[in-house]
């Protein structure tokens, strides 16, 4: 079974979207550049050269900036989501059918353009609904962002959000409304475990450093091996 075209396309792309990805920009890490994340997705989906690195698949805020920037609007976040679900499933699901297999080897205007993608010429477009030829099977039409912060967040979580200004890397932080523990999400990524109103634990040291810079002395950020508090 062939690999999804969009995933491979991103894997060898020139990384022009790297400086709109908040995780790549603020985390600095090379593996969090969207194309590197997609290499990991490719590995999960069976490509022999990529590495299965679940951190890369999780390091996505679902903001859609890379897709907005992409000439072909490749839906990176849904593909990472799909790959993550496959990788974390107890009984791994076979790779999905290639939704863009028909798109390759086409040569059109100018030089070489995928036939099923419409080159973008103007300013960034609205993020397309996840029903296009490059979308993974079952992808949601758009990422939903939690707006019920006031209803669900505890005092500790509210204190942390206040310290951080409710945003990080330009993306809104929201409480993990379904969890038992006090956690914060940034987009789809689980970034912060709240110990109390003034202390949080973060697994990624780059994110920790950035959070600390954002919060200053209003918040103590600890780096831990896992997101669970010590």
């Amino acid at each position, binding site marked *: 079974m062939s690999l999804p075209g969009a995933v491979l396309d991103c894997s060898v792309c020139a990384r022009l979207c790297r400086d709109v990805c908040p995780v790549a920009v603020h985390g600095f890490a*090379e593996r969090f550049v969207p194309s590197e994340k997609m290499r990991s997705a490719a590995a999960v989906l069976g490509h022999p050269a990529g590495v299965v690195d679940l951190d890369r698949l999780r390091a996505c805020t679902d903001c859609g900036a890379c897709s907005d920037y992409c*000439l072909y609007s490749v839906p990176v976040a849904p593909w990472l989501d799909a790959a993550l679900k496959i990788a974390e499933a107890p009984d791994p699901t076979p790779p999905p059918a290639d939704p863009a297999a028909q798109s390759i080897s086409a040569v059109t205007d100018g030089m070489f353009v995928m036939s099923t993608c419409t080159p973008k010429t103007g300013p960034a477009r609205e993020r397309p609904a996840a029903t296009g030829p490059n979308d993974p099977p079952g992808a949601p039409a758009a990422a939903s962002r939690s707006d019920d912060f006031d209803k669900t967040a505890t005092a500790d979580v509210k204190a942390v959000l206040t310290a951080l200004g409710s945003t990080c890397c330009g993306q809104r932080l929201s409480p993990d409304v379904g969890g038992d523990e006090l956690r914060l999400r940034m987009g789809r990524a689980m970034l912060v475990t709240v110990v109390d109103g003034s202390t949080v634990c973060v697994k990624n040291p780059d994110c920790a450093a950035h959070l600390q810079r954002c919060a200053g002395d209003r918040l103590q950020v600890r780096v831990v091996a896992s997101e669970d508090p010590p």
Partner: protein
Amino acid sequence: MTVSNPFEREAASRDLWVRNQIAFLQGQSAPSAADVVRPASVAELAVVVKEAVAAGRPIVPLGAGSGVCGAIACRGEELVIDLKALTDIDVDSARGIARFGAGVMGRHAEEACNRVGFTIGHFPSSIACSTVGGWVAARGAGQLSSRYGKIEDICVGATAVLPDGSTQTAWRGSRELAEWIGNEGTLALLTEVYLRIRPQRQGWTFTAYMAPNLGIALKAASLIIRQRPIASLLRVYDPIDSRIALSHSKGGLARKLPWMLAAPRAILTAGDLALRKCLVVVGWEGEGPAWDAARTASDAIAGALACRHLGSGPGEVWLARRHDVSFKQIAVLRSGYFADTFEVGCPWTRVEPVYNAVRKAISPGAVSMAHFSHAYTDGSAIYFSMAGKLDAYDATWTRALKAASDAGATISHHHGVGRLKAQRMIDELGGAHGALVQAKAEYDPAGLLNPGCLGLPSQPRTVPPHVGFAGLDVGNGLWCGPLSDTLGAIEATVRPRGWTLGAAANAQQTLGAWLANDLIDPQASQLGNARSRVVALEGTLADGTPFGTRVAPRFATGPDLRPRLLDGDHHVERATLRLVRQPQHWRHLYGEFDSPLDTARAMAATGIDIWASVVKGTRLDIWLACGTPGERAVANKVDWSAQQDESAPDAVRGAHVARKGRFLPWKELAEAADPDAIIVGVEAAGGWLVEGGR
């Protein structure tokens, strides 16, 4: 901070060399570095470098990894030093200079300048995925290099960490900066760069033509680029690329690649017979009478060469799609072919022969097309796009590089060398390879900085020198001759043909003394120091090896070795020099001021091109060239309340002679200059403090 994550090592151990991409698609994994570190400060970086060198660990510096020549590559034992945490930005618009940490992403740097109404003027296609440090380390170029120059023209200073862990700052005109720019991490690690910034201009003025054939298109381009005000954008497309470029504005061209690759040589022959017309696109940043005058002059040149006027449409299309090309490589790669680009530089009269030679060399295994997108008064870059079968990738590159070199072009104009072109570096340097080896031995005797890149470390290799011509080369705006010639004799040779070296102030001085002392001429101070006019040198190295460096308008083949060749124990016999068109009319602005340096700085900050300037005591003299209608329109816009006339620089205050100068940015200049100092060559970022002035 050590990044121990093995996945980060995997991602940080390569760049965008197409060979890597092909290997990935074929299921092959590249070797990773042993460790990755991401220093958070220059001090931390210095410690890391010192400890690594002491431990004998190879070091590979990493920016954003967007290079396409394999400058980032590992074999398993290296320490990758990721510089992206060095993100300080300090834009000083009042002084026309900006300081950036080496890890600042290109677009963020440009946006920081834009916020105060300024621009770096450096717009590589990779601006969104490359760092400022990477621009300088690889000697890159932006799309508007005709006006702003390449990064070596924009970069006026840098700070670097040397292999011994020391930190050093160097300014324009120094041997150190010349050798750091383009060193690709083999001599020193850049930590901060100081870039000249200019006020942003609003709007564009475009024009375009269809030339009957490539030769006429190139002729038109070579004449248009010598007009003033200089065009920001000048692109010539070969016949195939012209069809493609125009198809953009019409909405698309048919798909062709699979059958083209079935018989690439036949396609080359048939294409040359069937397609002849070439598109020329010219653009000036700005709108108004000055740019209309420039466009009118350009139209007249093209019209005299039987080019058909196409209006502004192709230029506007280019502006809208200027960053699209990098995306388009992907589908070709994934469909089982390679797609890659190859950029060379050569004098105008060599452009068409190099183009033909390289395309012919490529044609057995790949199809190609080209555009000519970085134009200078003395030559142009040629940017080849090639696509072929995967198994022909290495052979195609080998043939292309050899053909370009044999036909008289430098093997890189702005992509750099990396490991892809390393084997050609010895031939490229035309016998001066020993000077590169000498530089490596001085900076990095253990050979630990980016080993393999630029073909270093290496033993000196001897190859035949590139031999220059003799006298005035009108077609390329160059002069070549022995260092024993006097500057007056050179000017007497070139002035009757409308050119100048800009060195008339010291007519009795020999070219050798002028270059040895690196003098700056107050009568043409915009042209910078003497050595900035050198295109190529011929002579013998200290060990007796004859050398002759490549004649090319710009290059991206490692450090600039010309200061080393002129300063060291080597013996230079002949030099090829870049000329400029001699303006025939002037607007001379002068007066006495309480703070003439501030007045000069304010003038430079307007972004206007100043031909010559002298600050001495309280007196300021500025000359604006008014040789063309466009120049006159620009000069007339300058608001000047003090005295003015139309005298030429050499008719006033003739006592000024060329002297040795030291370039300093404005802040340092103000601190270093005493009331009797002479300062010449003021520009947006600073000026030259004349040694022994008074």
